[in-house]
């Protein structure tokens, strides 16, 4: 269970990024966070990742307050952020604790690489990978500790539409294996409607939850279905209202 209580973030320069977010997410759900740029959705993700400290409010994962990065949390950023001097195997193993025996690290890294379909590329350097492959390697690095909470910050936005569709299917397949709670920040409403059980629309700055949509259509979802299109239309409407308010 992920509990977010009265979460606010004000940066040192005085910018208020988030103003009181309250949220309870059951384990194993997929949550999409959408909103106009500057609404604080990336700040929310950085707070969950432990990269920023909240100005006030708390984040609890299974009752324990989150203070800083945790091995229970995996993060995939918009860019792959692989270490260019390490091959895929060592980049993925980077996510594992260093006191672990080398053999166990390798075994776990190989398993994560297989899960994202990169087997055979263990020795490849990041410069030899395409954008899609690099993002898979980044996903493997985030998955290698088998996190309870997987945070994805617009991870597919730099990829072309077909590749994005394939990675959507793969993320769902991987998610179904051990069902981590998944928080996906995106500006792609189709992506949100396709993947998420719960869609948060943020508006801001400062960021507040403008609307929450539950999406209980069974998977795999058909983007051409009426219910999908209706959800998408409602999301678009709410988002336009947010943008109006901001402008």
């Amino acid at each position, binding site marked *: 269970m992920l509990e977010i209580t009265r979460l606010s973030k004000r940066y040192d320069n005085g910018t208020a990024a988030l103003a009181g977010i309250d949220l309870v997410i059951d384990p194993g759900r997929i949550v999409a966070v959408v909103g106009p740029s500057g609404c604080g959705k990336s700040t929310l993700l950085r707070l969950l990742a*432990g990269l920023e400290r909240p100005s006030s409010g708390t984040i609890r994962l299974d009752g324990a307050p989150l203070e800083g*990065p945790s091995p229970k*949390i995996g993060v995939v950023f918009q*860019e792959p952020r692989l270490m*260019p001097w390490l091959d895929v195997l060592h980049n993925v193993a*980077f*996510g594992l604790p260093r006191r672990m025996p080398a053999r166990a690290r390798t075994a776990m890294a190989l398993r994560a690489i297989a899960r994202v379909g990169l087997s055979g590329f263990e020795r490849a350097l990041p*410069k*030899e990978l*395409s954008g899609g492959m690099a993002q898979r390697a980044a996903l493997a690095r985030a998955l290698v500790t088998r996190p309870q909470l997987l945070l994805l910050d617009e991870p597919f936005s730099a990829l072309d539409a077909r590749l994005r569709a394939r990675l959507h299917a793969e993320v769902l397949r991987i998610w179904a294996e051990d069902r981590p709670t998944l928080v996906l920040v995106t500006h792609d409403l189709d992506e949100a409607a396709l993947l998420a059980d719960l869609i948060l629309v943020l508006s801001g700055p400062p960021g507040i939850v403008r609307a929450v949509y539950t999406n209980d259509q069974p998977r795999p979802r058909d983007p051409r279905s009426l219910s999908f299109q209706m959800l998408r239309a409602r999301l678009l409407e709410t988002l336009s209202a947010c943008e109006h308010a901001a402008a």
Partner: protein
Amino acid sequence: MMPSAVETSLAARAAALRAASPLKLPPALFGFLLPASLALSWELAAFEGWITLRLLPPPSAVAATLAELAQSGELTRHLRATLFRVGSGFVLGVAVASVLAALTGTVELLRRLLDPSIQALRAIPSIAWVPLFVLWFGIFETPKILLIALGAFFPTYLGLESGIRAVDRKLVEVGRIYHLGRVGIVLRILVPAALPSWLTGIRGGLGLAWMFVIAAELMGASEGLGYLLIDGQMSGNAAIILGALFLFALLGKLTDALLVIVIRRATAWQDSFVRGA
């Protein structure tokens, strides 16, 4: 699911590019063309009597002088002296510079405290330290090695310090996500990421070490290649001077080439335009 055929073929092509060399002939061979033909025409000019032999002895005479020096064991003594000075001064300068740069590059307080002073010292032409070094340390080995160390210090310091400061903040965040401490971030992210810039600095430092060994040996020495230069000038023997110059070129190029091999191995992961550039 496997990666697409496009992704697979891209990686295969990248691997093939890594393996293939752009030229069939060893590039080193091309490098020898110019000096070899120059030496030949020089020899010919001397043979035909177009140049004054006393001032510009031909390569064969230079080689004979060097052979003579080698036979008497003197050449080994001079070479050993110079190599020892360059080696120890270079290692000392690189070591001190690297530690300082690692500190100023990662600890903001130390950077504010030390970096301005180091940059100010850099503005002093290093040769200008010679009188002070002689006054402090005499004329034997210590001031020579310190001067060479000073030469190697600044390029190395600048290379590592600027390299660390240029590291992508986003990679550092990955380190924080995986709970690396301060030392872990320095060793596992900052140092490898700054390595290319550091090694380029070290390479510049090696060049300056060779430059300063001459300055050091010209300020008074009883052995070393710099001593040979002075000796040739005093005795009016141009062949000795040319021989010493040739050895400087040879040793400088050789040590640089060794360093370049190390650099290529250590930075093969870089996505550069020309491999090894």
